[in-house]
């Protein structure tokens, strides 16, 4: 009876545990991509809400983490998401992130990423930092594999330069 009770309380993986495990790495990834902590926070929350809405099904997947990152990237890349963020920026719901300029000064890699487009940053963050396969990353970003290749080579060039300058 005791075992049943425990299983009922924690069916497979609980959302709370998953949230605790993944929130920081998702937020950091989105921060590198958007270069704005408020946008990154917004997208992180939205991704977790979407995952929570389907948690019964997602918790049983082999890799709920991949689903979370795919959802976050989906929110990031869709025209709706971008338009909403642009509108929020315009009417000042989302302030400009002034902290980024100080971090740019401190960290050469963050500075190097600044010269890339958000998608180029996303390509390199998903594959190199988070370890997703390139096909999977291309799918998450809704781009062709060849496009991902272009993004990654640009991003690698920029990062390489930053690493040698340090």
């Amino acid at each position, binding site marked *: 009876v005791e075992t049943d009770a425990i299983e009922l309380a924690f069916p497979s993986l609980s959302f709370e545990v998953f949230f605790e495990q993944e929130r920081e790495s998702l937020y*950091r990834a989105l921060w590198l991509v958007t270069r704005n902590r408020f946008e990154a926070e917004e997208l992180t929350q939205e991704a977790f809400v979407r995952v929570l809405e389907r948690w019964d099904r997602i918790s049983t997947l082999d890799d709920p983490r991949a689903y979370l990152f795919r959802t976050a990237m989906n929110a990031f890349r869709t025209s709706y998401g971008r338009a909403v963020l642009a509108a929020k920026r315009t009417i000042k719901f989302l302030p400009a992130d002034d902290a980024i300029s100080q971090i740019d000064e401190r960290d050469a890699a963050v500075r190097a990423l600044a010269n890339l487009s958000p998608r180029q940053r996303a390509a390199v963050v998903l594959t190199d930092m988070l370890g997703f396969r390139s096909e999977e990353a291309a799918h998450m970003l809704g781009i062709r594999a060849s496009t991902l290749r*272009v993004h990654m080579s640009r991003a690698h060039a920029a990062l390489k330069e930053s690493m040698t300058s340090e």
Partner: protein
Amino acid sequence: VNEYRSTLERAGSNAPPADLALERVLRRRERKRRNQRITAGVVGIAVFVAAVWVLGARLGGETTNPAKPPMVVPGETKALEVAKNFFAAYGAFDADRAITYLADDADLSGIGADGIREFRLLLSYLEAVEYRQLHTSCLDVGSSALETYVHCTYDFHSNGSDQIGRGPYSGTSIHFTVRDGKIVRASMYWELGKYASQMWYPFKEWVSTNYPKDVAVMYDDTYTGDYALTPNSIRLWKRHTREYVEQVGR
């Protein structure tokens, strides 16, 4: 890759602390649910009103048929016009015309081209694989202080799919950022599921069987095995697309 990983992880650790409490996610979900309920209610009322209006108009007959108000067509913004013209030139493989709508430093990496030279090769590639875009629809989706965003959806044929009774393929879209009347960024979302299974993989298999030596020229295996953008590759794509259509379409 590992060297990039540690560099990126270190860069990511600079992220300012965020307020990411579980309670905020739960509150946000509640808000979303409430908004969905309100939206459903509003839609329900609108459907009811429309039904009453249609019924009333039918019962009232011709006598109550008022003069139709002129349809208001919102004026196209300059950004929308620029994006539409660029996309039309893109679909017509007219690189010279398309380039006139681009800013000098336009970022085209989102459509798979690293700079203008690759953009020209990309259009040559699309022409070679007999790419066709149709049912194009563009919308001005918003703007910030400096930029306007235009979103176009369309269907496409490729690798001769229209000639062998497959496609067109829907769900693909292209997103433009326009600043000062020029496109500064273009990025594309490809919906490739059906196209990949019906055209891309069967074609690749056909090439691998019939022209195994050409595979290395036509496909770029650096990361992903997608098409290679070189003049030699494009010549082969053109020739083999033709042959494939003739053979499969027979």
